[in-house]
Structure formats: C-alpha cells, structure tokens
C-alpha cells in the first residue's frame, strides 16, 4: 500500500506533458534528530533533463540537506524524491549508476595520490582495465592534474583538491550531477576553469543541480534557479525572468529582497 502511494506521489510530481523529470522532489520534510529546526519544510522541485539548475540559499537554508536527500544519502521524514522517474526505495542501484555527486567537503583520501583516488572510485563504479585507465586520464586532464597525478592529495593546494573533487564525481560520466558549493575557497583561475568545464558538460547533455550562495555564479551558469529559504523554495525561474518580475538589478538584490537582511545562520 505504502509503495503504491509513493509511486502515485512520484507520478503526480514527475509526469508532466508525458516527460519524466531528471529530478523531482515532492513535499520533502526533514528534521535532524535533537534539533528543533526544520531543515527542509515542504520542499518541492522539478529539474528537467539537460537543465543547469541553481539552488541558492544562505548558510543553513537547507541546500546540503536537499542534495543529501536528492542523492539518496539521507531519507526524508516525509515526501518523495525521484531521479529519472525512479525512486531510491526500489531502484537505488540504477539511480547511483547515473548520478554523480560532488560534496561540499573534499571527498578524497589525503594519503592517496590523485591517480590512486581515481583508481579506487573508478573500480567501485565497476570500471576495469583499459576503460578505467582512459577514464582516469580524462579526469586528470579535465582537472589539469595530469602532471601532478602521482603526488599525494595531501600536498595539493585548495584549488587542485577542488578540481580533483569535481573530476572524481565525473568518473563514471553521470547523466545527473549534484554539485554542493564546489567552488568554496577556490582561487579565481580554478573557479573560472571549473565554470567553463561545467558549462561544457551541460552542453553535452548532463543535467546539473548546483548549490551555491554566490549569486553572480548562479547568474552566470544556471538556466534556472530556485531560491531556498528556511527549507522551502520561495521563488524559482530563469535568472532573467526573476529579475524582470522583481525590478531588481541583480540576483543579490533579489535574494535580499526575498529573504531579508537579517543573519540566517544564528
């Protein structure tokens, strides 16, 4: 019975004009144990295939929680998530084959080299032999780390780690990519390179969900954005549409207009 209800709920969220959304979240609720704070509060969201969607929010708005739920790392208290029309309860393995995740923290082993890190994650994705070596070389080239591939990640700069972190999430050529603030603490050159590569990926058909609190980044990269505040999406649309509707000069003004100027992480 519960399974049927979930499937109906997924259907109502995803099947529009006969097209299945890449990501569909429906009425997500999440509260962490021991916290009085509602991390996600009735969050609903649809991202279509090939879209570059930006999730904007202040610190503590619920961006990382949303990504954790979308990627199946956590389960919602209520509500449903579907990826390409599939739910984690029944098709977790299939979803994970097509989904890439770049966490906010550096998700690499410090005491392994870049090549060893890629080899480890690549093998866990099921790549073997020549195909694996090819993918590793492509990822190293993508992150401009071919010459430093044999150095321990421990010795890398923040920018190098971020680039490798991103490349590791792309090892298995995912159809959908979740990026949780991938440019935090990165220098201008590395950020520029990351942006350029993400745009290229999106142009090749990868659906991207990108969380950030850098407004200019979202304006530059995203075809559509959702503004997240206190666990709910309070506004969504393309940057141009949103700016037109609000008469604001830029996304930062719009963001402050919508969420207010008081600090949100206290």
């Amino acid at each position: 019975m519960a399974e049927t209800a979930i499937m109906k709920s997924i259907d109502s969220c995803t099947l529009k004009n006969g097209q299945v959304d890449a990501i569909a979240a429906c009425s997500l609720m999440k509260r962490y144990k021991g916290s009085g704070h509602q991390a996600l509060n009735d969050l609903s969201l649809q991202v279509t295939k090939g879209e570059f969607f930006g999730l904007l929010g202040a610190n503590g708005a619920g961006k990382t929680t949303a990504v954790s739920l979308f990627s199946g790392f956590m389960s919602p208290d209520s509500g449903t998530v579907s990826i390409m029309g599939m739910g984690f309860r029944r098709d977790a393995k299939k979803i994970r084959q097509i989904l890439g995740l770049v966490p906010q923290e550096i998700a690499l082993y410090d005491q392994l080299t870049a090549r060893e890190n890629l080899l480890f994650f690549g093998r866990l994705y099921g790549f073997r032999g020549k195909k694996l070596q090819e993918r590793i070389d492509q990822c190293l080239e993508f992150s401009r780390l071919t010459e430093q591939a044999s150095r321990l990640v421990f010795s890398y700069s923040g920018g190098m780690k971020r680039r490798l972190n991103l490349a590791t999430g792309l090892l298995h050529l995912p159809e959908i990519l979740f990026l949780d603030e991938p440019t935090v603490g990165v220098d201008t050159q590395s950020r520029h390179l990351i942006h350029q590569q993400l745009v290229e990926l999106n142009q090749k058909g990868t659906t991207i969900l990108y969380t950030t609190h850098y407004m200019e980044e979202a304006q530059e990269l995203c075809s559509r954005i959702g503004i997240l505040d206190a666990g709910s999406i309070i506004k969504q649309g393309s940057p141009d549409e949103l700016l037109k509707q609000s008469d604001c000069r830029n996304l930062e003004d719009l963001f402050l207009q919508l969420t207010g100027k008081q600090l949100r992480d206290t």
Partner: protein
Amino acid sequence: MLKIITATCKELILLKRDRAGLLVLFLMPALLVIVITLVQENVMELTGQKSTQLLLLDLDEGELGINLRQRLAGEQIEIVAWDKQLKTSVDVEKAIATGNYQVGLIIPAGSSVTMREAATQLLQTTVQSGNDQPALRLYLKVFFDPGIMPGLRSGITAQLQMALGAIAMEMKIENLGKEIGKLVTQLGIPQDALPIDNLSEHIGQPLFTLDENRDGAVDSESPPYNPVQQNVPAWALFGMFFTAVPLAGSILQERRSGIWIRLASLPLSHLVLFVGKVIAFVVVCLCQFVLVGLIGAFLFPGIGLPAFSISQNPGAVLLVVFLSSLAACGFGLFLGMACSTYEQASTLGYTAIVASAALGGVMVPVYAMPPLMQELAIISPLNWGLNAFLDILVRGDALSAIWSDLGRLTLFFFLTMLLAWNLVRARK
C-alpha cells in the same frame, strides 16, 4: 568480489603510508610482551613456579653437604655453592637481603662430625639405660629473601627439613644396624640371616606415592607452563584488539570528510567497504601475532627466557588468531559508527580494551581474581581468545576443546558488524 579487493587494497595502502600509526600497532605488543614476560619471569622466581636458587656456603665440606646436595638435586632448587675461602656468612646474608638469591644456607664447620656424634649419642642414650647425657644438636643457618611469597618459603623450609630429616634418619638406622649386628654376633646368629647391611635402604623405602592426576587429554609433548606460553598469546591478543581504534579512526575520518557521502552515492553497499576494512585489519592482526610469536620463539631464548612454541597445533592457533582478529575488527567497526569523533572512539575503545584485557586474564590470571570477577570474565572477548590459546598452547588440548570460545568470538564479530551496519542505516 573485485570491489572488496579494491576496498582492501585501499585500506592496506593507507595503513602502509601511516608509518607512525603502523609502528605503534606493532611496537606496542612487541614491547609489552618483552617487558611483561621479563617481569613475570621474576614473579615466577618469587612464587616458586620457576626453580629457586639456593646459595650454599659449606664451611664444613663434609658428608652432610654432599648428602644434602644429592637429596635436593632434581627438586625445584638450584644450588649455587660459594667457596668458603672467598666468601663468609655475612656475604651470604647480604646476597639474600639484596634479592640476588631467594634462599641462603650455611653449614657450619664440623657439622658432619657433630652429626655423627649426635646420632651415636642418641643411640647410646636409647640402648643404655641411665645415660642422661644432654642431646647434641646441630644448627644450620638459613636466610630467605623477604620478597618471596610465604607459600614458597614454607615449601623450601619443608624441602630442607625433609632432606635433613632423611640424612639424619639414614645415619640413625646405620648406627642401629651396627648395634643390631653386634647383638646378633653376640647371640651366635649368622650375619647374613638378617638384611642388616641394607637396613637403611629397606627402611627408607617410601610407603606412599602422590599420584598427580591432570584432567583432560594432556599432551605429554606440550611445553610446561611458563610465562612465555602465557604472555606471547595474551599480549598479541591485546595488540590485536588495539587495532579496533585505528579501524574506527579510518571510518570516522571518512564520515567526517565528504568521502562517506561520496561512498554512499556509489552503486555499492557499505558492507563491501566494511568487509574491505576488516580484511585489511585482519592482515595487520596476523602480522602482529607473527611478530610477537617470532620474538617469543627467537629473541626470548637469547635473553634467558624459554622459547615460545606453537608446534603442538599450529592450525588451531592460527584459527584462534583469525577469529580473535575478526572480533577485534567487529568492535572497531562498531566504534567507528557509534562514536562521533576520533577522541570519543579512542577513549571508549582503549578503556574498553584495557578493562576487557584485565577482566579476561591478560594481566592477572582469572583464577587469581575474586569470585565475582571470575564470573564476569566470561563476558570479555579477550578471555575467550586467551582461553582458547591457553587450551591449545599450555593444556595441550585439541581443537574440539575450544569450539565454544571460537563460537563466542565469531558471534561477537557478527553482532558488532550487524550493529555497525544498523547504525549506517539509522544515520540515513
């Protein structure tokens, strides 16, 4: 399977690169087994589980000293004789007081002559009525190291008294035989009609023999109990369980970085990663045991300790090592999932392991504990491992005797792994 091998290789590489951590993992049990065994070797001297050194200064150099040495030979007393030209009774007293020897005995000059006179006088007093001469007495000086246990002191005193009593009895019988011989001659009975010549030998035959019965199938080839056979497996086991903390640390490092989230996004179960960790750390535990075993087998004989041996049943020993390692790894997985920080895991882990080792008989044998603690020892995984080791290595038992302990270790591994797995699911 390939994913498990990948996870195992990654863990082994990370362990290899953490040289300081690895050094601690191997150095700690090696150092502990050497220090504790040397300390216990001394304790065994003081409790009499090892032969006791008796320092003898024979100022008499007569038949008493020779006889006494012969009678004590074969007992657990090793006699060290000092030359009376070079040493005095004061030297003996000092050597004992400083703990260099456990017992000192001085036979005063002229003791053998006095002994014969005393025996003759005693017989005369007995056969000649009206002879009221005061009995001659012989005094030997004995010193004990104040550090030795009262039980050992009583034991040595009893052994000395028995030996001296036997010498005195032999002399009395010899004199009695001579006296009977005289009477027989006077009565005209042929000498060979009575076994007078062998009288002391005949009378000295013991009437009772204490038959020590050791329960179970004791392998006559199993080495005698010594601190090495106890300490090598005990401290190797202690070291193996200590690997639980670095294993927990490796999980916590992944959980606290983005790695855990990335791993959760992969198309594989966390169980694969757990199994990879367990295999890698079981390899570490096996290496630890091999190292400690090699120290016991090859280094110990070089420093005057008995050699460690697993030759009775190496297969059973390896099985105990393997299952103990699994139990230790299971505990590590549980710690890694139950704790939030490395500080929590190390404090909780080390405390639990030390308490479990103390309770399990690694530090003090279980039989020497108060009754309540002996009852509680059964809950310690280190007790299960140690019991199995001692059954094989000391008691010479077969594999069938340790199934219950092996079963407990296996169950503990699966239970802790299941708890860790449930915590992974609960944290979702």
